[in-house]
């Protein structure tokens, strides 16, 4: 006699076993990359956790079926007469040391008219010189950043970290670059999203022997707004081994506000 309840359980457990086998293969690859990177110069800051999560999107190739690309690009091109308001949190998971920490809430307002003035309220440890192998395990402390993207005022590490704070702009640029892969529908906690695999270019990894693992951007299938960004980063503290960290940037709120005087005031970092 067939019992659908038992049949479903059997299917679920078989699926679970398949997933574990796949994850085991992936973990093996990550460990190999960490060993290869051990003696290389890497970014050294806890804030790199969030930076890398978004910067994987910067270099994101995005090649898709006809129609998807055009709709995404249109949806991700905001009206200049708006102010982007975004809230997010970042969960970093390290396997050695084994720990997980969630950093947030983080919040930003960005004027969509050049020079793109912004103000961000973050919850990260901002001092790069205090990073050690336990950095991904610790919570942050609240602090504020502000400036304009045009002046590069928030560049903390010699490069742009615009992507830290505005992943949608980076997604849009990635569409223009045309090098990512739409993998179709996926599930996040029961929510249907569109999964975009991001194959990183060689320069995303400082070692030519280190083929970087892909990152993933999960976007709402209707609005194309970001839901989550998943990636890996390596932290090389001044002392101790390289730490491999899996990062999930979860967008809690994403909206374009009208460019009123009151909303523009929210982008003014010097008003505090």
């Amino acid at each position: 006699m067939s019992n659908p309840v038992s049949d479903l359980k059997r299917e679920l457990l078989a699926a679970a076993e398949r997933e574990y086998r796949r994850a085991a293969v992936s973990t093996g690859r990550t460990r190999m990359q960490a060993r290869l990177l051990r003696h290389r110069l890497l970014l050294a800051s806890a804030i790199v956790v969030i930076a890398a999560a978004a910067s994987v999107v910067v270099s994101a190739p995005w090649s898709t079926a006809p129609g998807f690309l055009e709709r995404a690009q249109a949806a991700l091109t905001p009206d200049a007469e708006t102010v982007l308001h975004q809230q997010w949190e970042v969960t970093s998971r390290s396997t050695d040391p084994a720990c997980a920490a969630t950093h947030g809430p983080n919040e930003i307002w960005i004027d969509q008219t050049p020079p793109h003035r912004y103000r961000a309220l973050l919850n990260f440890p901002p001092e790069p010189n205090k990073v050690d192998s336990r950095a991904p395990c610790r919570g942050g402390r609240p602090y504020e950043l502000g400036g304009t993207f045009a002046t590069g005022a928030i560049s903390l590490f010699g490069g742009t970290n615009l992507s830290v704070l505005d992943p949608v702009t980076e997604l849009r640029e990635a569409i223009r670059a045309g090098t990512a892969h739409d993998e179709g529908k996926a599930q996040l906690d029961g929510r249907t999203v569109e999964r975009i695999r991001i194959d990183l270019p060689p320069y995303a990894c400082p070692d030519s022997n280190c083929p970087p693992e892909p990152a993933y951007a999960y976007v709402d299938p209707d609005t194309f707004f970001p839901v989550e960004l998943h990636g890996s980063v390596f932290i090389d503290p001044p002392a101790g081994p390289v730490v491999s960290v899996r990062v999930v940037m979860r967008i809690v709120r994403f909206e374009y506000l009208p460019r009123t005087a009151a909303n523009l005031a929210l982008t003014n970092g010097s008003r505090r």
Partner: protein
Amino acid sequence: MRNGEQRSDTELLLAACTCSEPFGVFYERHFASVLAFFRRRVSGPEEAFDLAAETFAAALASVSRFQPGPEPPQAWLFAIARNKLSEALRSSRIQDDARRALAMQPIRLDDEAIAIIEVTARAPVIELLESLAPDQRGAIEAHHLAERGYAQIAAELRCSESVVRKRVSRGLAALRSSLGRSSSHE
């Protein structure tokens, strides 16, 4: 180490990140409630089963993301169930994205299987019925399950019809209250 049956839901979900057996225990513990949740909200047992299957597949796909919090793990599970239900209502069809992503085979449902689904979906309600005072449970079973009239039941119990009506009414109110409490996770 405690065996699966003794472990809390949180322990099971955390352990399920590396081993399938704990998820099996979690499934057995909550499948009937999830099925009952859908059975009360969709027209047929096949649809309810389909939604429950998709919910557990989505839960399995997300289990590595589960983080213990102030809410019980059932709240996480029923949040997924609610998402599945609203998706189905919005698109007028039951999605199978999670099951396809996990390469799960569809479960074929014959008449016998559907009968099992119906019994399973009723199980949580029967459990609640058992929790009622004996006079209220007897009155509800006699009137709603055996479909006997109030007068007939009153004659059998040698009491007035209004007493039987009051027992049924109070029993149903208690059931609704219990369902409301269990639905607060849903």
